[in-house]
């Protein structure tokens, strides 16, 4: 079983992300592996352990994306590849999908490609399906369980209405949700291995593709309007009185 897991380095979820001079800024907050991708790594490792295989972790980004890759290596992935090219700086999700699909093809004979359900920075959540489209593979998104039998995979999708079971032939693309189960911590042995790993860097030339043109642009980046919140305590002699006063206020404010 040959598995690829795609990860992204993103600003920490505790970072305050703001627009500054038309650019997104997260100050000096640390960059971390996208939390959703940790579930994808966990699923990749569990599948590898159950079916005897290898997991290659792939990321597209700058030098700092190596940290996300090393985190995944420390969790137990076999090897890592960084795709980095100056021409990829303004790439959108569709371009990312083309690049990742090219990398998956170059790795060769991949049976399963795992993604987190979305990245917490762009929050588009469409890279997994776009990659599947480029590869011509089925996309089994929002996977909570994954069962492989021979060349068939059965997935329980965690969707708003409940669980939906779908199946497909491999190779396939998967996006993972929290319901899959908590990702493991890196092991100390994994940390040692990861800290020594020399991660190969592939350019667009190595992938044999042109720089994909962005079809989505970000013409303007602005901060959300500041919320003006005032707090008022509704008082009264009894719960009934308080409730009545509250209802009056809600009606007066035209909330309802």
């Amino acid at each position: 079983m040959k598995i690829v897991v795609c990860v992204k380095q993103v600003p920490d979820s505790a970072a305050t992300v703001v627009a500054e001079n038309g650019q997104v800024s997260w100050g000096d907050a640390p960059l971390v592996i996208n939390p959703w991708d940790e579930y994808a790594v966990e699923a990749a490792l569990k599948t590898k352990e159950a079916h005897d295989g290898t997991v290659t972790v792939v990321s597209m980004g700058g030098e700092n994306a190596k940290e996300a890759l090393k985190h995944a290596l420390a969790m137990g992935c076999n090897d890592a590849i960084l795709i980095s090219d100056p021409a990829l700086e303004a790439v959108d999700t569709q371009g990312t999908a083309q690049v990742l699909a090219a990398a998956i093809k170059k790795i060769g004979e991949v049976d399963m490609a795992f993604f987190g359900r979305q990245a917490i920075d762009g929050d588009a959540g469409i890279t997994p399906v776009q990659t599947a489209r480029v590869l011509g593979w089925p996309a089994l998104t929002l996977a909570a369980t994954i069962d492989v039998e021979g060349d068939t995979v059965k997935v329980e999708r965690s969707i708003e209405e409940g669980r939906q079971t779908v199946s497909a032939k491999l190779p396939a693309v998967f996006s993972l949700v929290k319901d899959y189960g908590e990702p493991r911590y890196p092991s100390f042995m994994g940390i040692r291995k990861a800290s020594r790993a020399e991660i190969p860097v592939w350019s667009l030339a190595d992938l044999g593709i042109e720089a994909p043109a962005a079809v989505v642009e970000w013409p303007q980046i602005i901060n959300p309007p500041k919320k003006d919140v005032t707090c008022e305590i509704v008082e009264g002699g009894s719960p009934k009185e308080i409730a009545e006063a509250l209802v009056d206020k809600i009606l007066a404010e035209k909330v309802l």
Partner: protein
Amino acid sequence: MDFALTEEHRMVEKMVRNFAQKEVAPVIKEFDRKQEMAPFVLERMGELGILGICFPVRYGGQGMDYISLGLACEELEVVDTTLRVIMSVHVGLAGTTLLQWGTEEQKQKFLVPLARGEKIGCGAFTEPGAGSDVSNLRTHAKREGDSYVLNGEKMWISLATKADYAVVTVVTDPNAEKPSRRLSTFIVDLHSPGVTRGDIHGKLGVRAGSTGWINFQDVRVPAENMIGEEGEGFKVTMTAFDRGRYTVGAGATGIIRAALEASVRYANERTSFGQPISQHQLIQQKIARMAQDYEIARLLNLKVGWMLNQGLRNTLETSYAKKFATEASFKAADDAIQIHGAYGFSDEYDVERYLRNARGAIIYEGSSEIQTLIQAGYALGERKDKPLRCELPAYDADYWQAE
């Protein structure tokens, strides 16, 4: 000179931080109130390899260095002192003492299961009537054939009721000319007949941990369980303390950080006189002091970690680090309470727990007074490090990590 942590160190910090924050932080208040240890803690720390972090792989450990041990202690104590206490006694007092003084057979028999986290270790030195005054211990052992028979009681022992093995120092020769030659150290299986033990409740702090007493009544300990030679117990114990103190100092650094982080958060949220209290200079003074003390404590402890890696004796440096960090942690927690005002006085916030937890470390593992005497002794030239028969091995990554 290089002040940078390696990538490996930073990954260790993050891994231990994630464990402590994700699994222990959400429930620690509940267990602190109940005065009970969270039941999953030892098992999880064992599974994750934290209990064997700095031991060679060949002895069941994870092959990391002594700096990693200190960093892990800091991350653990940011969440709760009881987590770091486990490291102090299991790794500091029991494990590294075996690594330093143990025979190959003892390492195989005792260090391997400890490093793997399959067994839990502790150190039993203090008694109801003797703490700092180690040469005045009462618990004694008498040779009978192939074994020693232990009698006496140890008190204020962390993990007393949780541990499988204890490193125990007792009197073997009450008539020795030099008081320090009276003592010998053993590794004792606490499941042996004649061992009874219990936890002490009503402590000011470290309430989510196990601190107790261990009573030995005619407990037979095989002679091959002696760590070091007969009469060498004082030296063995002092080196165990050096290691325990390092973990205590590194951990106290974590309390300073926790107090600082809580104070910054609260001072930016809370307003008084029309502005966040972080804008008031008297609040800033407290915060600046915590930030400065954190930096000092961390540097002192990292230096000890570095010295351990190099195989250098570090009794004095460990004393500086332990005394400074524990005293600064108490002060930081106290100031954090002041910044939090009345809220800081309630257990709605964590800072009161930091204060209660910080207090003990100024007493245990060598009180501040003992540290002062050690430091004065070195400064006056009255105290000098003499070579030991067994030194703690310097960290050698290749040796440590070979299967």
